[in-house]
C-alpha cells in the first residue's frame, strides 16, 4: 500500500501527467496496466478499461471525460505519487484536452505502432508543447505482428527533434515496457513547483466537474499552492461563493476521502451543492480563511462552432430536456443552448457544439442517460449577414436568416490539417475542392505519409466531410481543424415549402452552387417520406421567392377496405384504433399530416446517388 498520504506528500515526490493518444491507439489499456502494475487495482478487479466510465465511452472506445487517478510508484526505494489525468482523444474535445494539460507537468505521447501518428494527436501534442510539458514519446501495441515500430519511431523522433532510440516501446496488452514508462515519468516529468510553505494561501484549479446521481456534483481539482483541509470553508474565486465541503479526497482508483490535499496534488471535492452552475470548470478554489488574492489563470470558454436544434418528439418532454441539458452542461462547458420554437417541431433548444462528434455524443447521452426521444435538425454554423440597409444579423439558425436584399454573408473558416498516405493525395485534393477548400502547404512527415493544410469553410466540414474523407482514403486519413478567420461567400438560404408553407426545420444556408442539389434532394426525399393524402401536395425548394425545385405528392385516390362482413368488422375496428394511435405521432403542417419519422429521415444526411436526382440537379442548375 502507498506510503505517501494525501495532504502530507512532498511536492518533490509528485509527478502529474496525462496521456495524449488517438482513438483506438490503446490509451485506456495502457492506463489500466499502470493501475495494475502500481498495485492499486488487483488483477481480479480489473474491468476492461477501468477509467472509461460512461457506457458510450466504453462502446465507442473513446474517452470523452477526463478522470484523475493517484498512483504510487517506487523507484530506487523512494515512493513517488503519480497523478494520471486521462484526456479525450477526439478533435471536438480539444478544449477538454487543454484543461487536462493545465493540470499536468508532463505528457505521454502514445502512438499505435501499427498506424503511426494521427492529425488530432499531432494537434494535441503541439498544445502540450505550448504548455511547456515534458513529452515522453511511446509506441504502443508492439506485440502486434503488423507493428512497424522502427518506421514510426523515426516519424515521431522527427516531429519532436529527438533520437529514435528515445521513443519507448510498450504493449498495453502484455504489459511489456510499462514499468519502464513509469520510471521514465518519474525521471523526466518535473515535480510541481507551487507555493508550499505552511502559510501559503491555497489555490486549486477546477479542471473538471461531473454530476454523480448519488453524490451530487463532484469537482476535480489540481492543488497548485498551499493546502486545503477537509473541514475548511472554501471560496470559488470567480463566482465569489462560499461552501462547506462535505468531502475532500483522491481517486485511487475509487473515491477515497482524505483530511487534506497539498500543493501539487490532484483530487476531488464534494460541496453538496446541487446547482450545476455553482461549480465552474476553470475557476480557482481558495480557503475562506486566509484566501489567495489572485485567481489562477483560468480557461478561455470554448466557442461553439456548430449549431443544431434538438426537439423532443413528445413535446411534453421539453422540461425533461431542459433538466438533462443543465446536467450535461456541468462538465461540458462547451455546450450552450437556448429555447427555440419551431413551427414544425414544437418546443426545443438551439444548441451549440464544438463539432459534429460533440453533437452526436450529446444527443446520444440525452437519449441514453436521460431516456429522451429526440429529433435533431441539420447542423449549421454561424453567419454574419449584412443587408443593403447596412443592418447586421448574427445568424445561428437558418430560419432566422433575414428577408430582403443581402449585401454580404460572412462564414467561419477553419484551418484543416489532414494526414494521409501519399497514394490518396489526388482524391483528397478533389474532395477538398468540392468542399470549397483552398490548399495551403503540404509536407511529407515520412516517406509514405503527408500532411496537407487547407482552409475550408466550417459549414462544409460539419456535414459529411469526415465520413467522405474516411471513405475516400480507405479509413487511413485523419483530420484536425481549428478556427481560422472568416470569409464572405455567395451563400443563400434555401427554404422547403410543403403546400406553399415554409417548414422552418428544413431551411438551410448553402453556397449558391449547392442550393440546387440541396433543393432537389430534399424535395425528393420528402416526396418519398410523406404519405399520400386526399389532396395533391406540392413540395418546393425556394431561394427567396424563386422556386428552384418541385415535386408533387399525388392525391390519394383509394383508401378503403374491400370486404366488411362478419369478422371483418372487428378487424376493421382494430385497424381504426391503430390508426388513431398512429395519428399522435403525426405533425400537422397546415392540412398536411407528416409522420415524425419523415422529419428524422429527411434530416439524415446522405449523398445524391441515383440518376434521377442527379439529372434533376443538373436541370435545376441550367434553369437558373
Amino acid at each position: 500500500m502507498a506510503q505517501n498520504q494525501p495532504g502530507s506528500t512532498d511536492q518533490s515526490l509528485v509527478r502529474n501527467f496525462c496521456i495524449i493518444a488517438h482513438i483506438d491507439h490503446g490509451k485506456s489499456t495502457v492506463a489500466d496496466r499502470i493501475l495494475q502494475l502500481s498495485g492499486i487495482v488487483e488483477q481480479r478487479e480489473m474491468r476492461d478499461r477501468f477509467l472509461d466510465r460512461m457506457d458510450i465511452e466504453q462502446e465507442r472506445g473513446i474517452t470523452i471525460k477526463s478522470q484523475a487517478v493517484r498512483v504510487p510508484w517506487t523507484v530506487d526505494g523512494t515512493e513517488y505519487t503519480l497523478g494520471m489525468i486521462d484526456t479525450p482523444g477526439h478533435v471536438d474535445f480539444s478544449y477538454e484536452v487543454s484543461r487536462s494539460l493545465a493540470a499536468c507537468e508532463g505528457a505521454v505521447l502514445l502512438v499505435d505502432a501499427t498506424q503511426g501518428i494521427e492529425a488530432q494527436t499531432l494537434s494535441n501534442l503541439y498544445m502540450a508543447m505550448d504548455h511547456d510539458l515534458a513529452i515522453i514519446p511511446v509506441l504502443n501495441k508492439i506485440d502486434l505482428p503488423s507493428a512497424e515500430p522502427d518506421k514510426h519511431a523515426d516519424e515521431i523522433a522527427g516531429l519532436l527533434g529527438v533520437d529514435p532510440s528515445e521513443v519507448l516501446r510498450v504493449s498495453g496488452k502484455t504489459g511489456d515496457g510499462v514499468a519502464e514508462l513509469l520510471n521514465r515519468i518519474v525521471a523526466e516529468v518535473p515535480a510541481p513547483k507551487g507555493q508550499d510553505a505552511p502559510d501559503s494561501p491555497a489555490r486549486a484549479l477546477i479542471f473538471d466537474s461531473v454530476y454523480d446521481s448519488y453524490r451530487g456534483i463532484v469537482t476535480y481539482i489540481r492543488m497548485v499552492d498551499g493546502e486545503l483541509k477537509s473541514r475548511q470553508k472554501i471560496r470559488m474565486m470567480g463566482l465569489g461563493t462560499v461552501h462547506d465541503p462535505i468531502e475532500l479526497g483522491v481517486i485511487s482508483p475509487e473515491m477515497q476521502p482524505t483530511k487534506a490535499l497539498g500543493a501539487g496534488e490532484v483530487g476531488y471535492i464534494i460541496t453538496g451543492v446541487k446547482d450545476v452552475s455553482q461549480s465552474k470548470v476553470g475557476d480557482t478554489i481558495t480557503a475562506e480563511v486566509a484566501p489567495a488574492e489572485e485567481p489562477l489563470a483560468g480557461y478561455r470558454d470554448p466557442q461553439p462552432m456548430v449549431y443544431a436544434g434538438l426537439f423532443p418528439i413528445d413535446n411534453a418532454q421539453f422540461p425533461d430536456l431542459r433538466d438533462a441539458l443543465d446536467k450535461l452542461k456541468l462538465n461540458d462547458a462547451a455546450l450552450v443552448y437556448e429555447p427555440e420554437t419551431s413551427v414544425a417541431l414544437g418546443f426545443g433548444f438551439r444548441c451549440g457544439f464544438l463539432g459534429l462528434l460533440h453533437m452526436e455524443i450529446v444527443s446520444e447521452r440525452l437519449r441514453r442517460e436521460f431516456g429522451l426521444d429526440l429529433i435533431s435538425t441539420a447542423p449549421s454554423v454561424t453567419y454574419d449577414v449584412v443587408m443593403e440597409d447596412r443592418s447586421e444579423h448574427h445568424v445561428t439558425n437558418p430560419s432566422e436568416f433575414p428577408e430582403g436584399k443581402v449585401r454580404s454573408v460572412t462564414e467561419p473558416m477553419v484551418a484543416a490539417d489532414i494526414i494521409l498516405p501519399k497514394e490518396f493525395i489526388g482524391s483528397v485534393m478533389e474532395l477538398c475542392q468540392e468542399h470549397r477548400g483552398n490548399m495551403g502547404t503540404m509536407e511529407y512527415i515520412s516517406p509514405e505519409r503527408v500532411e496537407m493544410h487547407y482552409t475550408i469553410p466550417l459549414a462544409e466540414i460539419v456535414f459529411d466531410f469526415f465520413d467522405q474523407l474516411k471513405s475516400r482514403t480507405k479509413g487511413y486519413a485523419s483530420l484536425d481543424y481549428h478556427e481560422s478567420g472568416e470569409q464572405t461567400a455567395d451563400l443563400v438560404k434555401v427554404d422547403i415549402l410543403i403546400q406553399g408553407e415554409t417548414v422552418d426545420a428544413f431551411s438551410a444556408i448553402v453556397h449558391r452552387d449547392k442550393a440546387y442539389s440541396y433543393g432537389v434532394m430534399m424535395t425528393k426525399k420528402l416526396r418519398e417520406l410523406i404519405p399520400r393524402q386526399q389532396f395533391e401536395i406540392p413540395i418546393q425548394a425556394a431561394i427567396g421567392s424563386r422556386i428552384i425545385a418541385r415535386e408533387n405528392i399525388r392525391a390519394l385516390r383509394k383508401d378503403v377496405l374491400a370486404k366488411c362482413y362478419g369478422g371483418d368488422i372487428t378487424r376493421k375496428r382494430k385497424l381504426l384504433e391503430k390508426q388513431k394511435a398512429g395519428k399522435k405521432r403525426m405533425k400537422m403542417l397546415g392540412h398536411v399530416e407528416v409522420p415524425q419519422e419523415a422529419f428524422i429521415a429527411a434530416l439524415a444526411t446522405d449523398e445524391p446517388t441515383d440518376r434521377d436526382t442527379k439529372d434533376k440537379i443538373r436541370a435545376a442548375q441550367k434553369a437558373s
Partner: protein
Amino acid sequence: MAQVPYEVYVHVPFCLRRCGYCDFNTYTAVDLGGGVSRSSYADMAMREMDLVKEWQLSHDLHEPPAHTIFFGGGTPTILPAHDLVRLVAHIRDLWGIEEGAEVTTEANPDTVDAAYLAELQDGGFNRISFGMQSAVPHVLKTLDRTHNQENVVSNVDAARRLGLRSSVDLIYGTPGESVEDWRTSVEAALELDVDHISAYALALEPTTKMGRMIASGRLPEPDDDDEATKYEIADELFSQAGLEWYEVSNWCRPGNESEHNLGYWRNVDWAGIGPGAHSHYNGLALRSWDIHHPKMWGTSITQKRVPWADSETLDSTMCIEEMAILGLRMREGLDIAAFEKAAGMSIPDVTLAEFEREKLATIKNGRIIATRRGRLLNDAMIAQVVAAVGA
C-alpha cells in the same frame, strides 16, 4: 330493446385447392383430425348449432326464426348438396326459418352443376353466389382459379331455370390485370344478366403465396391508383346497366340486395357456425368467434362446449367506431342523429361542410352518404367522423 332480425352463417372450411391470394380459414385435406372431416362436417356443424341454441337460451336470448341463412367458405359446394340441405333443415328445427327468408350459398363455378343446384333448390336454397372473379383466362390463372367463363354462364343459366337468384363475385387489381382485362370481366358479368354483383379489390395478404411472390418481385405490386380506376369503371358500367351500389363493394337491381349482408351492416344478431366464424348479439353488445382450427373446434364440440375462441363486449367507443364503419360504407348512409346520440356529441358543422366541399359525401335527410370519391376514400372518412366526436 326491440327484437332485431336473426341470421345464421355457416362456414365450410374445405377447398379442392388453395388459391394463391386466399388467407381464409380453409383446408384442402379431406380429414382434419379431431373427428372433423368432409364427411362428418355437417354433423359437427349441427352439433355446434345445438350448443349455440343452448347458450342462447341460458342467456335468455329467444331468437326469432332465421331471416337469412348464408353458407360461405372455403367452398361450401365441396360438400354433397345433401349435407347443405340437412344443415338448413336443422336450422329450421332449432329456430325456424322466416317465410320467404333468403338462403344463399357461395359456389365455385366448377364444383356445381344443374343437378346439384336442383337439389339445393329443393332443400330450401333460393340464392347462389358464384365466385366468378374474372372472365380473363390469364387473370384466373394468376388467381389459381380452375374454372372458366363457360362454367359460370352454364351454371347461372341453370340456376335461373330453377328459379334461383344469382350473384357473382369479381376481383379487381390482380397482378398483371390490365384496365381492359377488367372492363372485359365487368362486361362479361353484366352479360350474365344477374341482379347482384360484388366487386372486391384484391386484398393482398403477406402470408399467402401471392404475397410472397410480390414481396420477392416475381409478381408486380398492386397499385392503388389502378384499383381506383377499376372501381370507377365498374361503378360506371354497373349503374349504366341498372345495378346501383348499396355498399362500397356491392351493386344490385333495386330490391335484390343481399339481405344477409345488410344484416351485418345493420348490426342484427347472427350465429356464426364453423371454425373461425364470428357471431354477434346486439343486445349484449357481444362479438364472439369460433376456434380457428377445425381440429380444436371439433374437439370442443365433442366435449359439449360452445367452440368459441374468444369474445369481446363492445364499449361505447367501440360501438361508435362500428357505427361509423358500417354506416359510411352503405348507400343508406350514416344516420347523423343516431350517431351523435351514441357519441353524446355533435359532429361539427365544419366536418360535414368539408365532406361536401371535398366531394366526399352528400348530406341528405340527416344522413352522410358517401359519393363515389367518398367510397374510395371511405377509411379516411371513417377516421375523420370518429375523430370529430372525439372518440
